[in-house]
């Protein structure tokens, strides 16, 4: 089975894509919930600085030391951002936008100066090339395994272990930082650990999807999940499902149209997000519209019931409890009046007798309930 996997280039690419998505979802969920998603954009860019520095020191491009070294650059970004914010001279968004371009610029200039012939060219920096992951392999026993598969697999396991081990603490620190602090949980430290893992994931995913596409994998699947559920563990499940679905469908479409695979996978995360945004069961736009329409219709029927009830048996019953009166007194247009009456009789709240409208006992009950919700009957 392993041999089958390692012979199948398509499967390897999809697997790496899914692993990038899963590892990113595991950390990204907390970033999205905390409202600090854009840190992943900053981190994604400034690890370029870290990668170049580490390369200048060690002249090696991959391996755990490189990942850790470059990941520290990501944490440095966040540290510098928080430092700037703490001076109270700039707001958080401006601070993020000041720090990462500086680090990124220094990284690019260092590349210009010292590393013209390294494979970290400016194209890779932003886009990566997930289609080539199978070319860069290491030999493990009898197998030649793609390097990205190993590093992404390791990062995914690491992130998963972190989330599982500190699930309670992370949950508390995310939703109630003050309480977490009061309980002695050091939410700040936990946050930095999370960002270190985010940076590590960025470095590991760098060759495959580059700096900008990485942002899509961190933010979009958790956001999609956030539109679908209120439960934290379900958010992980949905996010992971979106990651897998995006990498499979993205790969298929990219091959069919002969376009960038990483790019198409990221576009697919956006497509799933749009689906959740529009058709999500509870927070989706359609569901919201339907709910609002249902509410409005319900209110119309209630209005009608109260109107009929108020004039029932009174002297003006003959001219009030007819469809025409709804137009004049409730200011409903003809179509609406007819529609509401129709729905009212469908729900067996009113009966239509020619022009005249009469409440059924159910309708009368409803009107009484509205006018006297506590159930106290006057006289």
């Amino acid at each position, binding site marked *: 089975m392993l041999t089958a996997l390692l012979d199948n280039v398509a499967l390897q690419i999809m697997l790496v894509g899914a692993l990038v998505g899963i590892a990113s979802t595991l950390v990204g969920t907390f970033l*999205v919930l905390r*409202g*600090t*998603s*854009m840190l*992943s*954009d900053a981190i994604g*860019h400034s690890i370029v600085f870290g990668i170049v520095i580490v390369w200048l020191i060690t002249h090696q491009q991959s391996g755990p030391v490189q990942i850790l070294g470059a990941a520290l650059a990501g944490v440095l970004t966040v540290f510098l951002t928080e430092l700037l914010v703490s*001076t109270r*001279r*700039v*707001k958080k*968004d*401006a601070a*993020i*936008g*000041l720090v*990462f*371009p*500086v680090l*990124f*610029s*220094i990284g*690019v*200039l260092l590349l*210009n*100066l010292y590393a013209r012939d390294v494979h970290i060219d*400016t*194209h890779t920096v*932003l*886009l990566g090339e997930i289609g080539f992951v199978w070319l860069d392999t290491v030999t493990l026993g009898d197998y030649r395994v793609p390097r990205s598969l190993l590093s992404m697999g390791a990062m995914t396991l690491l992130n998963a272990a972190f989330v599982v081990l500190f699930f309670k603490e992370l949950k508390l620190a995310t939703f109630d930082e003050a309480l977490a602090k009061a309980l002695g949980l050091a939410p700040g430290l936990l946050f930095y650990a999370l960002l270190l893992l985010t940076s590590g994931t960025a470095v590991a995913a760098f060759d495959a999807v580059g*700096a*900008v*596409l990485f*942002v*899509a994998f*961190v*933010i*979009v699947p958790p*956001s999609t999940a*956030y*539109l679908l559920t209120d439960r934290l563990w379900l958010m992980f499940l949905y996010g992971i499902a979106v990651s897998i679905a995006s990498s499979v469908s993205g790969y298929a479409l*990219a091959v069919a*149209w*002969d*376009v*960038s695979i*990483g*790019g*198409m*996978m*990221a*576009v697919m*995360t*956006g497509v799933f*997000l749009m689906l959740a*945004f529009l058709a999500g069961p509870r*927070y989706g*736009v359609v569901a*919201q519209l339907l709910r609002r329409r249902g509410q409005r219709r319900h209110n119309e029927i209630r209005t009608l019931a109260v109107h009929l009830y108020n004039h029932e048996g009174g002297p003006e019953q003959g001219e009030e409890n007819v469809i025409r009166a709804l137009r004049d007194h409730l200011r409903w247009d003809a179509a609406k009046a007819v529609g509401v009456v129709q729905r009212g009789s469908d729900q067996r709240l009113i009966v239509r007798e020619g022009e005249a409208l009469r409440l059924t006992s159910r309708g009368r009950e409803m009107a009484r309930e509205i006018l006297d919700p506590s159930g106290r009957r006057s006289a």
Partner: protein
Amino acid sequence: MSVVELLSDYTIQNVVAGAALLGLVSGVLGSFAVLRQQSLLGDTMSHAALPGVCLGFIIAGTRDIGSILLGALATGALAALVMLLLTRMSRLKTDAGLGITLSVFFAMGVVLLTHIQGMNNASQGGLDAFLFGQAAATLRSDLWIMGGITAVALLLVAALWKEFKLVSFDPEFATSLGMPVAWLEVLLTVMVALAVVVGLQMVGVVLMAAMIIAPAVAARQWSRRLEDMVLLAALIGVAGGIFGALLSALSRGLATGPLIILSVSSVVLVSMTVAPERGFLWEALRRVRARRRLRYQQVLTTLYRLAVHHDDPVYPSEQGMLDTYHGLRTRAVLSQLERRGLAEWQASPHGEPGPARRWVLTPAGIAEAERVLDALGREDA
């Protein structure tokens, strides 16, 4: 190369002029973006310009700068709209909205880019230069377009100055005055997209964020009024742009975009350090002064209290006792008091143990101490 030679070089002239235009437009428009806490909107819009660049190319069939910039403007503005819809109509927060639009639009751009490369069109070369900018490829004709966009943006700002100002500082009040706040905000957002479009050629999509933010943040340190801030931001933007462009021309081989960004960012650092009122240096100085004043007042009032306590207006206090009382060496403060004529170093009365000389308040010192205590009492009340 001498400066004269440098300035007479056709390519360098173009690059410097382009960088100056970019600095001008992003300084002015960035001021509004930063004040309205929309700094990262520029980042999102510049990334989202990529699919527009590609679409413009596909539709025009050539690397025609006009249609490319039009495409960039269109998708940049569309991204802002999508971001707005995502955050207004769902539970997603602003940062997630920005990140989603940024990355997904950029991904669409990447997909279109590879599609164009697959078309085997000879003129597609240099399209991905928009990612990092390619200042050296700036043509005179590009400059005219960039200049035109800058002029339009500046004219709009001048014409709608009062409206923009009010919307940036107090949108609720602007609404109550019956201003079309939503439209003004849309206009400001579209203008950020204009700045981004100017910047694509010079610094590329990635670094545009800093170009919008840095001049404005630097200018903010020096000024309180919007008028001064916008002018100063424009100046800083232009200066940083020109400096970065020249540096890149001199260094041969260092990318222009990053050098421009580092130039304007250093201005931010310097401004934050030395700007009067808001600079770190001045703040530190203020703190030292305040601490010194406090020590001085403390020692003075201690002398006074001891005198009152002993019912002796010229009660002599020992230096060692004062040191113990304040937990630190008070000699420097006492010398200061002596110089101002508030305290005196007197010989001790005969026959008493302890050091030969002690501190005594002068009448001026007593008056000053009473004044200080009075002021403190007022603050307590």
